[in-house]
C-alpha cells in the first residue's frame, strides 16, 4: 500500500497527479469527438504546431502556455482558412503544416544552443507543473469541458449529419472552428503532461480503447476519461519509481490499456466484427 501513498508526501507529485487527472479528463472527453469525427490527424497537426510558440515564448521569457496557445490557435484557424481553397486539400495541409511549424521550432531552439528545455517541450514534464500552471490547466479545462457540455447536443448532430444541422439553422462553420479552437486549448494543456510529440496519443488512445468496449457515446466518454486518468496517474508512478520520462510513461500506460481492451473485446465477442469507421467522412460539407 505504501507504494501507492509514498509519492504523495511530495508537493510536486500531488500537484502532478491533480494536473494529470484534469488533463486526462479533458483530453479524453474532447478526444471522443476528435476520434469519432476522424480528426485524429488534425490533433496531430496541432500538437506539433505548438512547438514554435513554446520556443518563442521561452526565448522571450513569456508564458509558455500563451505561446503554445497562440501557435495552435493560429495553425487551427490557418488550416481551416487555407482549406477553403479547393485546390489545396485539407489532408495535405494537415500533413504539411505541422512539419513546417515543427521545423521552425527546432530552428529557433537551435539558436540558443541549449536543448535541455527542448526535451520537456517535446516530451512533457508533468512532474514540473507549478502552482500557476495548475491554475491555468484548471481554468482552460473548466472552460473547455463546459463548452463540450453546453454544445453536446449540437456536436452530436453535427457529427452524425452535418447537412441536417445546417438545414435547421446551425452554423456549421462556427461548429467546425469551435471544435478546432477547443482542440487547441486541449492540446496546450496536454503538452504540459506529455509534450508536443505525444499529446495526440492522450487524445486518441484512451478513446480508441473505450471504443472497443462500448458503442454508447456517453459510456465511451466516461470510459475514455477513466482510461486517460489511469494512464496519466499510472505514468506518474512509473516515472517516480523507475525514473523514466513521465510523458513517455503515460503514453505507454495508455497503450497497455488499449492492448487490454483489445484482448477483452476479442475474448468476449469473438465472432463480432470490430467496427471499422468508413473514411468517407472527410468529404463532409462545411461551407
Amino acid at each position, binding site marked *: 500500500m505504501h507504494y501507492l501513498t509514498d509519492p504523495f508526501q511530495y508537493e510536486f507529485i500531488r500537484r502532478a497527479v491533480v494536473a494529470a487527472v484534469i488533463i486526462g479528463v479533458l483530453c479524453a472527453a474532447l478526444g471522443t469527438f476528435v476520434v*469519432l469525427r476522424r480528426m485524429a490527424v488534425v490533433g496531430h497537426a496541432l500538437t506539433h504546431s505548438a512547438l514554435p510558440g513554446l520556443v518563442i515564448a521561452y526565448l522571450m521569457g513569456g508564458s509558455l502556455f500563451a505561446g503554445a496557445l497562440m501557435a495552435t490557435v493560429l495553425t487551427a484557424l490557418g488550416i481551416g482558412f487555407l482549406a477553403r481553397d*479547393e485546390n489545396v486539400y485539407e489532408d495535405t495541409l494537415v500533413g504539411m503544416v505541422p512539419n513546417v511549424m515543427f521545423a521552425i521550432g527546432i530552428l529557433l531552439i537551435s539558436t540558443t544552443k541549449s536543448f535541455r528545455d527542448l526535451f520537456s517541450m517535446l516530451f512533457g514534464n508533468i512532474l514540473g507543473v507549478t502552482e500557476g500552471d495548475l491554475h491555468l490547466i484548471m481554468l482552460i479545462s473548466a472552460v473547455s469541458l463546459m463548452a463540450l457540455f*453546453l*454544445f453536446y*447536443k*449540437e456536436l*452530436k*448532430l453535427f*457529427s*452524425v*449529419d452535418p*447537412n*441536417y444541422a*445546417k*438545414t*435547421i*439553422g*446551425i*452554423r456549421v462553420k462556427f461548429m467546425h472552428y469551435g471544435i478546432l479552437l477547443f482542440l487547441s486549448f486541449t492540446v496546450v494543456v496536454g503538452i504540459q503532461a506529455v509534450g508536443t510529440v505525444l499529446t495526440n496519443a492522450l487524445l486518441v488512445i484512451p478513446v480508441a480503447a473505450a*471504443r472497443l468496449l*462500448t*458503442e*454508447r*457515446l456517453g459510456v*465511451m466518454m466516461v470510459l475514455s476519461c477513466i482510461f486517460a486518468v489511469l494512464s496519466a496517474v499510472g505514468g506518474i508512478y512509473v516515472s517516480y519509481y523507475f525514473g523514466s520520462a513521465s510523458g513517455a510513461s503515460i503514453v505507454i500506460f495508455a497503450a497497455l490499456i488499449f492492448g487490454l481492451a483489445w484482448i477483452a473485446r476479442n475474448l468476449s465477442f469473438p465472432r463480432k466484427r470490430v*467496427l*471499422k*469507421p*468508413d473514411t*468517407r*467522412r472527410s468529404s463532409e*460539407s462545411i461551407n
Partner: protein
Amino acid sequence: MKFPYCQHRHSTPDPKSPALEIQGLGVSYSSEGKFALRDFDISVPAGSSLALVGPNGAGKSTLFKAICGLLPIRKGRIRVFGHPLVACHHRVVYLPQRSEIDWYFPVSVLDLVVMGRYVYLGWFNRPGRRDIEIARHALKEMNVLDLVDRQISKLSGGQQQRVLIARALTQNADLLLLDEPLNAVDVSTRQTVAEVLHKIKAQGKTVIVATHYYNQEEGRYDKAIYLKDGQKCII
C-alpha cells in the same frame, strides 16, 4: 416566436401561395462552376405530392439542397409557402440520401430520431419527455419502434431509411423533401414508406420525392417531373 438556431422569425404560411415556387433557378457547387441546375421553374401546390424523376446526376439532390439552404442560389428565386427561404426553415425538412450520414457514430436510434426536434429546442435546451414521446410515435408509425435502443451502426438499409423518415416526421414540417427514400430498400420498407407518405399527404402536407426509377411508384403521386442534366425535360 423565433426560430431558435438562426434567430429568424417564424412566418405563417400564406394560404394562397403554393408550398414551393421556383422561378429561373440556377445553382452550382462553386461560384464560377458549371450550373448543376439551370433555368428551373416549378410550382408545387400545398397538399400535393410530386415525383422528381431523373438519373443520378440529373440535379435532384441539388434542387433539394438549394431549397433547404445548403447550396447558394446563383440565379432566380425560391419561395416556400410564399416566403423567402430563411423564414421557413422549420417548415421544410430534407431527408438526405442514406450515404450522407455517419452511421458509425455511436448513437442510438432514439438519439437520431430526437434530432428532428432540435429545430424547436435551439442551443442549450435538452430534449424533454414530450420530444421523446414524439420520436417514439414517429418510430411506431414507421413500424420500427422495436429498434428504439439499437445503435444506428446496427441497422439494415431498409431500417436506416425508416429511421430517417421517422426523424423527418418528428420535425413536423409542412414540406417534405425526400431524396431517394426507396433506393435499395426491402419490399416491406417500400410499403411502409408508401403508406406513411399517403398519410402525410392526407394531413395536408406537401411531399416531393426524388427517385431515379419511376415505374414502380407511378400513380402514387399527383404529378411527376423529369430532370436531365440539370434541366426539366419533357418525355
